[in-house]
């Protein structure tokens, strides 16, 4: 029986199933990390303006309301943000790009093989180091060196989601129509901000991409999927 038919009979009470659905991409994703300075909001990874490059973005501490909250938000000096790149297909990081603030600047190390993989990290101070002055809400600072580019600072939040409607959908008296159609829905994040750390890196520095992870399913629909790195971000606090 297709679920669509069920709703023709009983309407939207069923949308209560969404009551524990996502708050945001990863914003406030678990109690232990919610509202802390290690809370990752989003991760993006895409081809740069230069097609030989990959852009890696981690946003944290989102969402931030405009004005004082955004202006006062800062990267803690005891939080290390790591971009992890697996280029062998085993989901163990082969390379890391580490970012951590000191003073008015964000310092970047790598890409370089980490001294150790997993939950604990040390900063790869022997790896190539770059830095960029942390941008303000009015001044954008960018460093480009050795074909890599770096940025850290507040930006508009690019995550979009009708969060208010979601709260209604997740309530005890959900609207029978579920989410609102385009034109009536409202993007909760439209006027909000986030702290972003952005690195653009030549693919040549990331090694050869392994077979696409989806091929591990053995399913034929993934036969033509291109080789792809596996990328994730971790936020780690100094002990």
């Amino acid at each position: 029986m297709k679920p669509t038919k069920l709703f023709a009979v009983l309407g939207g009470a069923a949308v209560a199933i969404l009551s524990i659905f996502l708050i945001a991409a990863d914003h406030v994703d678990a109690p232990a990390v919610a509202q802390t300075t290690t809370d990752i909001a989003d991760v993006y990874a895409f081809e740069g303006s230069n097609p030989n490059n990959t852009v890696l973005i981690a946003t944290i501490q989102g969402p931030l309301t405009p004005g004082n909250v955004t202006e006062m938000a800062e990267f803690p000096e005891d939080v290390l943000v790591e971009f992890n790149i697996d280029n062998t297909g085993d989901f163990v990081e082969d390379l890391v790009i580490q970012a951590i603030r000191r003073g008015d600047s964000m310092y970047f190390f790598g890409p370089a093989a980490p001294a150790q993989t997993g939950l604990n990290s040390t900063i790869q101070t022997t790896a190539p180091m770059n830095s960029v002055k942390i941008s303000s809400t009015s001044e954008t600072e960018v460093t480009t060196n050795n074909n890599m580019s770096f940025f850290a600072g507040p930006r508009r939040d690019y995550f979009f989601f009708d969060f208010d409607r979601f709260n209604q959908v997740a309530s005890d008296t959900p609207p029978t129509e579920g989410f609102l159609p385009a034109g009536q829905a409202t993007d909760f994040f439209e006027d909000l901000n986030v702290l972003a750390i952005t690195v653009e890196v030549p693919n040549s520095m990331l090694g050869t991409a392994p077979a696409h992870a989806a091929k591990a399913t053995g399913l034929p629909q993934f036969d033509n999927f291109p080789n792809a790195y596996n990328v994730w971000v971790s936020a780690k606090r100094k002990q």
Partner: protein
Amino acid sequence: MKTIYRTLIMAVIALCTTTMFVQCADDDDNGNAINEPTCDDGIMNADEEGIDCGGTFCEPCAVVLDFSGTYTQEDHMGRPGINTVFGGSDQVKNSFNVSITSDRATFQPIFESTLENYFDEYAVELGLDPANVNYETNILGLDATVFTTVLAQFDALQVAPDGETTYFNPGTGAALTGRNLADDVIDISLILMFGGDDLMNLNFDGDPAGEPLLITDGVDAGDRDFSLDFPYMSTVNQ
């Protein structure tokens, strides 16, 4: 800057005329005796804080930065929404955040249970047998077990160095090759969970009338600018 610097030099000269600045010892009036402090003269002079660094005019002196210590994971993220949607309980969500990407097999059955639970709760709400209301194989051709295996054990963005990078682009069919700023990851996630396997005839699309809309939240990226060069995201909302 140069004007200011000259002003400083004049001040130094003035000092020299009345005090004992060692570099002012020359008094032959031939104009070459005063060594003007510069940022590359190898001397700590003027108001420099070190040799040729710091002070009013030179680059800041190198600060010995402390990068020592061990940093321990508190959060991580690969694909959007995974932990929040499939973690199920606070305990699981907390433990997922401090787990290792390559060692998450134990989360797969939890994720599958959570996924099915959405449909079971939904069935109960409707007074139907939960056994008859289940996740349907999605547009990627993944059944519940494989879908949750991919989510739990391969939780990273797959990022293709060649070709289009997108979480899913219905227009081109490209999928799982990255995540760009314009990707509507909410709609994609809802479609993968609730939409079934036919992209042209998705479940829960609000049609026929009375069926709730669950495969899209109805918002797009609005006026966010995707044409920007590095760092690609626009300045803050004021």
